[in-house]
């Protein structure tokens, strides 16, 4: 049961790179496996390393349709799977006065009155689909139970209609910030991928790609400073998105090399807590901020 998007690990890396997503070997290998084994991919990692971006990039490369389920506290069956269109059912009943009961009953629980929500949409889709279940950890534990049937067999059971099975498996990506531990049952059904901060070399390529016009030497310095900040014991270490923001800031300021003044003034782009800024400034031997 493959989704059949990719032919090899290199193929994944090359095609993702073409859309502007530079994948580390771990990312490329795991995406390839998710495609080949037809299993959902659970992506964890700190905020801002490109977890959601990965799903979008895969969508773009494969020309598939993106179906997204954004999880939040209190998301439930009727938001994730399907809902009966009550208003329309009522209308149908009122319109059909004089019909026998049997006719009405069989009628109002038909496809016509079913409102598909993201999971059902993805399962029923005839065209290639990427299903993105974003921030899975924000949803309540009960929703995980709901996902189990979908993720293991790619089918959904609607009591009134029967079981709907996927005609083609969607390429499924779940993301999580680990604010809650996901259940073992869910993890077992997925391939696990941890996207951490990229290696220096890769991050430099990402910065150069995302911020065209930035001098290579400056990009290298930017990545080195960010690397040093990540090695510090901070409340919130800068992520890739912050590195890119910082590079853009430097470009906008017209800085052609890093010096104490520039770093001091722009540290707020990288660090979001005053304690962290003070701490980093002390470690980097900047004068008082």
């Amino acid at each position, binding site marked *: 049961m493959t989704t059949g998007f990719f032919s090899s690990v290199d193929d994944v890396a090359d095609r993702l790179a073409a859309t502007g997503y530079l994948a580390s*070997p771990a990312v490329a290998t795991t995406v390839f496996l*998710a495609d*080949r084994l037809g299993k959902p991919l659970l992506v964890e990692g700190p905020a801002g390393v490109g977890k959601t971006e990965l799903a979008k990039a895969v969508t773009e490369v494969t020309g598939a349709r993106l179906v997204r389920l954004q999880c939040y506290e209190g998301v439930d069956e009727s938001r994730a799977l399907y809902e009966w269109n009550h208003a329309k059912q009522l209308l149908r009943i009122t319109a059909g006065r004089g019909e026998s009961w049997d006719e009405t009953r069989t009628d109002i629980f038909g496809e016509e009155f079913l409102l598909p929500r993201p999971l059902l949409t993805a399962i029923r889709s005839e065209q290639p689909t990427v299903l993105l279940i974003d921030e899975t950890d924000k949803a309540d534990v009960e929703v995980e139970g709901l996902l189990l049937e979908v993720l293991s067999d790619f089918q959904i059971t609607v009591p009134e209609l029967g079981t709907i099975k996927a005609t083609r498996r969607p390429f499924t990506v779940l993301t999580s910030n680990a604010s809650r531990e996901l259940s073992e049952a869910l993890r077992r059904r997925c391939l696990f991928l941890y996207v951490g901060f990229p290696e220096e070399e890769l991050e430099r390529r990402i910065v150069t790609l995302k911020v065209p016009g930035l001098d290579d030497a400056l990009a290298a310095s930017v990545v080195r*400073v960010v690397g040093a900040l990540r090695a510090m014991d901070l409340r919130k270490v800068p992520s890739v998105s912050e590195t890119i923001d910082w590079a853009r800031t430097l470009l906008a300021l017209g800085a052609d090399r890093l*010096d104490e003044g520039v770093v001091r003034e722009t540290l707020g782009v990288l660090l979001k807590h005053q304690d962290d800024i003070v701490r980093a400034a002390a470690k980097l031997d900047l004068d008082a901020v």
Partner: protein
Amino acid sequence: MSRTVDGVDAATAPTTAATRLTGLVGALRAHGFGIGTGETVDAGHALAAVGFTDRERVREALAATLLHGEAQRPVFDRVFDLYFPLGHTRAAEAHGNTPAGPADLAALRDRLAEALSTGDGAALDRLAAEAVGGFGGYGSGPESDGWSSYQTLSRLRPETLLVRVRERLRAAPGTEESEFTDRLLDDEIRRRVEAFRERVRTEARRRVAERQGRDRVARRAVAGTADTVDFLLAGRAQLDELRRTVRPLARKLATRLAARRRRASRGEIDLRRTLRRSLSTGGVPVRPVLRRRPPRRPELVLLCDVSGSVAGFAQFTMLLVQALHDQFSRVRVFAFVNRVDEVTGLIARGSADPAGLGDRILAEAELTGWHGQSDYGTALGEFADRYAEALGPRTVVFVLGDARTNGSDPNLAALKRIADRARRVHWLNPEQPSLWGTGDSVAPAYAGLVEMRPCRNARQLGALIGRLLPV
């Protein structure tokens, strides 16, 4: 499956792939990883899909199918290195196995400095293999000999190469270092050296595994994940590693507490709002609205033994509670050895420098009287006398300590007084229950008065806090 192998051990990989995989899974299970048969089969499929041509891909494929969390990764990597060792080390062994002399050492250090400055991973792997082969061997008999990463590293002393690597990097053509990033250089070199040391350790483990059997080494010589390390046995490095887990753990606990709080408020129907909402469904109350309780957060008192034996445990818990402070209306932390003092302020300020917390507590708070040994009886008595106002019907008290009173009076009456005033008292003991009551431990006596639970590692602590904390 591909037979052209250059990453993984060439001769054996394809034929014994299945046995290697099951061996690896067995070793991981011995480390407490829950890996089912289905996942092992998936791992087999994954290996078939990526082939054996690239060792890193093999590693990632297995990680993707067998692991369930990032915390498991360090252990996995070490075990993986034993079951799927680098192929090219055979060649290195051929010329590097004889004990080497001082001249070789100097030459090796030269090449190491070069490799560190260019950051060439393959060369570093080769050098690690050579170093262990040349300087790590000990013993002579077939039973008593082995390979030691400690011995290798203490002869090679890669940390002393810092100056040389720095000079090489500065002298390298084309790197016109701007003045600012220059100050990062030393730390970067230190990180590279540390990575090299890890390579040496991996190589030594691999050689020992060849001698003693892979399964045995994978189970014994690979340290477990940080959260399963016993508090009482944890070394400095492990405590540092634990400290880094405080914040993520606190975040998870906070989410769990919030969920419990939400659930606790279920049940009572808010009639007015239910009727109001029923207007949209034609007067039929389809969705009842539940009453929201005003958020009344509990108070927490932490009473910690910070004497030498249990200091690591106490500090970790203090940091965790501090990170959770917004979940409570009030948190007060008291520390004792044989006298009690309040350290709430020290800990609040200490979040900026968690590593120095223990020293500051010992330096700034008054915790010892005539001697430096812990004395639970006196400390509990003093707490009950001096800080009785900290306790009330909404206070939950956590006492942390091993209940080893060094032979003095346990003062059960004081603990009774504390238990009577507070809503709940939990005692977390970092020792295993089989040791309670042995030697000078008076744990069973205290356990008769308050609930005492063993709490030996960070995982247990997380589970206990998530369950016991009031909502």
